[in-house]
């Protein structure tokens, strides 16, 4: 539960000069956290201001000419100094610099001011900087108002108009600042528990890191298996570690960790709550049948001719027309922690499965880590001959085959009993699509992103084929090679040494895969205009074509709807800031890990997962978290309990009606759950009694701003 503690005297020196108005109304923080927020806050504030009137300090930034080239900063300063309520008005070349911040801090410490306005760039850049400076000087960081006179003034207006607009904006900010209360951050109790959604490498890594830090972790996985996409891989680029060994190790650590509970064959079907106290409903996926999983995997892409005869899981030199599935006895032999290529490490049955209770389960958690992964692009029918020719398959299938047959060597690669003399790998299939050149999918979307891992995966596969089967020639048809990580460039160079032949095509003149004319001895040929041979048209007769399919967003539409997750133009989940906050979401307490966010390789996935884990642990470490206090607050005396605000509220659960005793009578009143409130103000707009307000953005503060914008100002047009 959350608690609002306004008027913490320790944080508001101005208040400390006044006697405590009513100690009962000022519960000390960290206690009574189930109590309703302090509802008498506005009355207190009125008294405070009577006792310690606002003394606003206005600080105007030159921004090194960015502002002062267009705004007459000194003229604005003189105008502001003459305004009522403004105690000091100063300028500085860079307010955000240490000397600039020191100006504010010195005025605060000397008691000259108790409210601060900085007029500079966008608040998204430096609001936090100045709030922090105020706090360091012993002031209340919420008694601060920011005026943006760069993006909103000097970058778009010039001359007198710029100076006048800057004056109006700063004057409005000063008007508002005079009414700013000494708010305290919302304090939300946080459960020291985490839910990780997705049991691939990202989820496993994040779960392990959080559990190692003492957080109780529940790992939710849709299938019966841990390992995700990595379970389908073999020798990994660039140095050739074994994916199954890596996965066995990681999953084994997770399964053995007392701090992690794995909840396999479950999906998230309900979501509620807020940072520190989320509630998730887990529903069981249909009756788990390990054998069915194995078959389902073998028949993935069953509509494709290429995969209708699935790659053999048995030694490929056994020619067999039969789809070779796992032996049916296998599942009964499977033990928890056992590994099956293509599926992963078998997860334990759920802790509550013994009770045969198949109903949904509700779990409470402090944070959520999303590790839902990606999907491999499925080529369209006929795209590079896919699904129309049995000799065309996807690179992931080829990689799985290479992993399944790792012990085999021999002059020629053998696949489904067929010797492969020449193999062509076509890059950028389903990635880097260009409007007007590539065809949109059913939902009208193109994958314009680079999938990043397929170049390395293709070259790695080519090297394995060449090293294990020296008589099999490999052709790589690429647009651009992006072997960007440590060791990958060396791997690329090794491919040339291995005599892999590279052919370069352009996106608007893509290779064509077609049946080879009879008598040529090959089933297929690839026709390509090769940029490395001065645009020469070449025919490459081949036995097999592998399509290096990219990564596309996973099927997480339900989660996106439920958690209202932001999705990028590429349809991957989108972080708050790509550089500075790369694993966070705007929804506090929910983090991103791995390929649900963007294509990345296993090392990058683990970096992201560990980053998400550290962020989560840091949030939960104190047992409570602090949020900005800009949320709705109800005046119970004025509220009539009409419920209009509850109907208008945009975030379910943030506002409700409750019955309480007021002046001896039982009445219905609106009640805010501060941790859920978005601070949007929809409730304020509909309240007929003006009984609800947003702290830090009250109606009175807005009115003061409007007054200052429309009033006559000396010398201002």
């Amino acid at each position, binding site marked *: 539960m959350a608690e609002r503690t306004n008027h913490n005297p320790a944080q508001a020196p101005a208040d400390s000069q006044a006697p405590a108005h009513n100690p009962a109304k000022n519960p000390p923080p960290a206690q009574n956290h189930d109590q309703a927020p302090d509802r008498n806050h506005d009355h207190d504030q009125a008294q405070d201001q009577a006792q310690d009137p606002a003394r606003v300090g206005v600080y105007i930034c030159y921004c090194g000419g960015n502002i002062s080239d267009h705004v007459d900063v000194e003229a604005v300063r003189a105008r502001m100094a003459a305004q009522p309520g403004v105690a000091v008005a100063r300028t500085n070349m860079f307010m955000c610099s240490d000397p600039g911040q020191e100006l504010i801090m010195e005025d605060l410490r000397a008691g000259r001011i108790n409210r601060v306005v900085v007029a500079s760039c966008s608040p998204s850049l430096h609001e936090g900087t100045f709030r922090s400076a105020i706090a360091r000087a012993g002031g209340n960081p919420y008694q601060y108002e920011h005026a943006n006179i760069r993006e909103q003034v000097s970058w778009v207006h010039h001359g007198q108009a710029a100076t006048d607009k800057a004056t109006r904006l700063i004057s409005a900010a000063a008007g508002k600042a005079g009414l700013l209360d000494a708010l305290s951050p919302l304090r939300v109790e946080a459960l020291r528990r985490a839910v990780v959604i997705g049991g691939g490498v990202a989820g496993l890594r994040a779960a392990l890191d959080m559990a190692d830090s003492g957080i109780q972790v529940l790992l939710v996985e849709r299938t019966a298996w841990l390992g995700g996409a990595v379970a389908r891989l073999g020798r990994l680029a660039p140095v050739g570690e074994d994916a199954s060994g890596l996965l066995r190790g990681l999953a084994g650590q997770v399964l053995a960790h007392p701090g992690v509970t794995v909840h396999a064959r479950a999906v998230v079907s309900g979501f509620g709550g807020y940072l520190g106290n989320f509630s998730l409903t887990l529903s069981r996926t249909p009756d788990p049948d390990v054998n069915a999983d194995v078959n389902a995997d073998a028949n993935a892409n069953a509509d494709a001719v290429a995969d209708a005869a699935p790659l053999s899981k048995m030694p490929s030199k056994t020619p067999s027309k039969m789809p070779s599935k796992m032996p049916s006895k296998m599942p009964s032999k499977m033990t928890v922690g056992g590994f099956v290529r293509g599926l992963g490490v078998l997860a334990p049955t759920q802790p509550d499965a013994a009770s045969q209770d198949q109903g949904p389960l509700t779990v409470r958690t402090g944070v959520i880590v999303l590790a839902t992964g990606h999907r491999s692009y499925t080529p369209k029918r006929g795209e590079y001959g896919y699904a129309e020719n049995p000799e065309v398959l996807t690179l992931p299938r080829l990689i799985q085959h290479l992993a399944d047959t790792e012990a085999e060597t021999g002059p020629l690669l053998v696949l489904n009993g067929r010797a492969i003399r*020449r193999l062509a790998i076509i890059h950028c299939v389903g990635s880097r699509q260009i409007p007007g050149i590539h065809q949109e999918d059913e939902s009208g979307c193109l994958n314009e992103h680079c999938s990043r891992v397929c170049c390395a995966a293709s070259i790695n596969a080519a090297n394995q084929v060449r090293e294990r089967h020296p008589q099999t*020639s490999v*052709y790589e048809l690429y647009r651009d090679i992006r072997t960007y990580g440590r060791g990958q460039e060396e791997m690329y*160079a090794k491919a*040339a*040494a291995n*005599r892999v*032949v*590279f052919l370069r095509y352009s996106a608007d003149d893509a290779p064509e895969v077609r049946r080879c004319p009879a008598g040529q001895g090959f089933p297929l040929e690839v*026709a390509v205009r*090769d940029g*490395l*041979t*001065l645009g*020469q*048209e*070449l*025919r*490459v*007769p081949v036995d097999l074509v592998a399509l290096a399919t990219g990564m596309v967003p996973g099927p997480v539409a339900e989660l996106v709807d439920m958690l209202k997750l932001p999705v990028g133009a590429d349809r991957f989940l989108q972080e708050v800031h790509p550089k500075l906050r790369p694993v966070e979401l705007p929804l506090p307490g929910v983090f991103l890990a791995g390929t649900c966010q963007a294509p990345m390789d296993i090392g990058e996935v683990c970096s992201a997962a560990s980053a998400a884990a550290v962020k989560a642990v840091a949030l939960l470490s104190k047992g409570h978290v602090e949020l900005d206090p800009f949320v709705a607050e109800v005046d119970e005396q004025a509220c009539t309990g009409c419920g209009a605000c509850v109907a208008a509220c945009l975030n379910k659960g943030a506002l409700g009606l409750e019955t309480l005793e007021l002046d001896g009578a039982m009445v219905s009143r609106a009640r805010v759950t501060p941790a859920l409130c978005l601070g949007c103000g929809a409730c304020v707009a509909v309240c007929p009694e003006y009984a609800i307000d947003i702290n830090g953005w009250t109606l009175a503060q807005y009115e003061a701003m409007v007054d200052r914008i429309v009033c006559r100002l000396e010398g201002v047009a």
Partner: protein
Amino acid sequence: MAQVNPDFMETLRQAGTDTGAECNNCGTCVAICPLAEGHFPRLMLRYAQLGAQELILDQAQELWRCLHCGLCTQTCPRGANPGEVILALKRFVVASWRRS
């Protein structure tokens, strides 16, 4: 439309060297060659790498630009030995000419 043929490398090996298969088409040999015009000798190495025999025979006269100064071989970052490949290609062309 020329056809790609990996078996040509064996022919070339018998004619002298098959190191041209390791060429990564950087073009350093073109930059250093004192006599070349256009894309010589890289393009010839490329034809050899692809096994595009008909293109090699069509443009065989290009091969005789080369005076075997060895600068390309000295500077080749991949050790593909372009000078020796050109010499092998000359032998291949002559042998093919004799046969026809």
